[in-house]
């Protein structure tokens, strides 16, 4: 049976010891902060299955906890009913049209917030360097998806007394020619200026 895409009340989804959180890539507090920033789309979908008559998360535990912590009423769920074909969906669950998901994946430019966490706070000089080398990357980027004269970097801030940097930019997610260069710029900053611990909630390597 094909998976179902649903928008489901977070209160209707539980965790179960038989499906523990195996995600060691994300740092919860960093991911929580990333997810608390303004966003154009819902939180990433979690995976779940029907177990003993309940909907149990099987992947994406941290996003479920974050949705609860941030008091999101619902979260996207990729549901595997398994053998429970007669299972009645929880009240408030509604299907997500595949056309909507497809349309989303074809969005070429996203207004995006990116949170970086560092091993130690950035000095004022290091913050300036971050603005130029990392934030400025998007203004220097040549892409057919954004007019060359359009400003891409919208804001940069350094919350948590400089232990974190948040940049807001128009990101050409439909152009896959530049991510490696961006990664290189971040790597250079991490090794030469201040170690980046996480990027958008995930451990940075």
């Amino acid at each position, binding site marked *: 049976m*094909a*998976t179902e*895409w649903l928008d489901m009340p977070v209160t209707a989804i539980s965790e179960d010891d038989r499906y523990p959180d*195996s*995600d060691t*890539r*994300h740092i919860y507090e960093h991911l929580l902060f*990333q997810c608390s920033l303004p*966003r*154009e*789309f*819902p*939180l*990433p*979908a979690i*995976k779940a299955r029907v177990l003993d008559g309940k909907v149990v998360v099987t*992947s*994406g*535990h*941290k*996003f479920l906890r974050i949705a609860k912590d941030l008091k999101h009423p619902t979260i*996207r769920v*990729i549901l595997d009913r398994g053998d429970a074909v007669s299972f009645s969906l929880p009240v408030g669950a509604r299907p997500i049209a*595949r056309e909507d*998901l*497809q349309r*989303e*994946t*074809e*969005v070429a430019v*996203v207004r*995006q917030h*990116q949170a970086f966490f560092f091993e130690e706070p950035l000095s004022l000089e290091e913050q300036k360097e971050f603005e130029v080398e990392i934030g400025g990357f998007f203004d220097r980027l040549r892409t*057919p*998806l954004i007019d060359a004269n359009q400003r891409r970097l919208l804001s940069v801030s350094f919350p948590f007394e400089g232990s974190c940097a948040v940049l807001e930019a128009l*990101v050409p*997610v*439909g*152009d*896959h*020619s530049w*991510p*490696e*260069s*961006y*990664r*290189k710029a*971040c*790597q*250079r900053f991490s090794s030469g200026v201040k170690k980046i611990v996480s*990027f*958008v*909630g*995930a451990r940075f*390597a």
Partner: protein
Amino acid sequence: MACAVVLNNAAPSAESVAAISDSSQGEYVTFYHGTSAYMADEMVTNQSVNIDRLASYQSSKSFDSGLYMSSQESTANYYSDLLFNGGQGGGPAIVQIDVPAESFNDFVNSSGISVETPVPHPPVPGQTETFVPLNQLNGFNNINGIRFSVKGN
């Protein structure tokens, strides 16, 4: 979209994936593709890359069209995080693609695609990529024994 594929005999790195032995199919090579959860779900359900979607989506772009893959899971994670952390299409996801090594080598030889091309100015030493253009993806989909699965979170 451009495409990058890495062979099992790529430059050694901590994450280079060795061929996996399978008694029924012989050795496999494993690649990772960073994408959205929706695209990953579709790829696994269909056990193939949706060429029509890729073609229509990329037709207006000036960069080369194809499919990105890497033997390095961290690279695929980085791509999917960077491009889909906003949550569009269900957010980031990784598709694991296991390809019978012998069949993949035949495909590479017949299609003439370049493999193990070093990533320009790689952030991590040893990164290589291979571009499989859009017009070769049908052959890629039809590699006997190719398997698509979603990698956990």
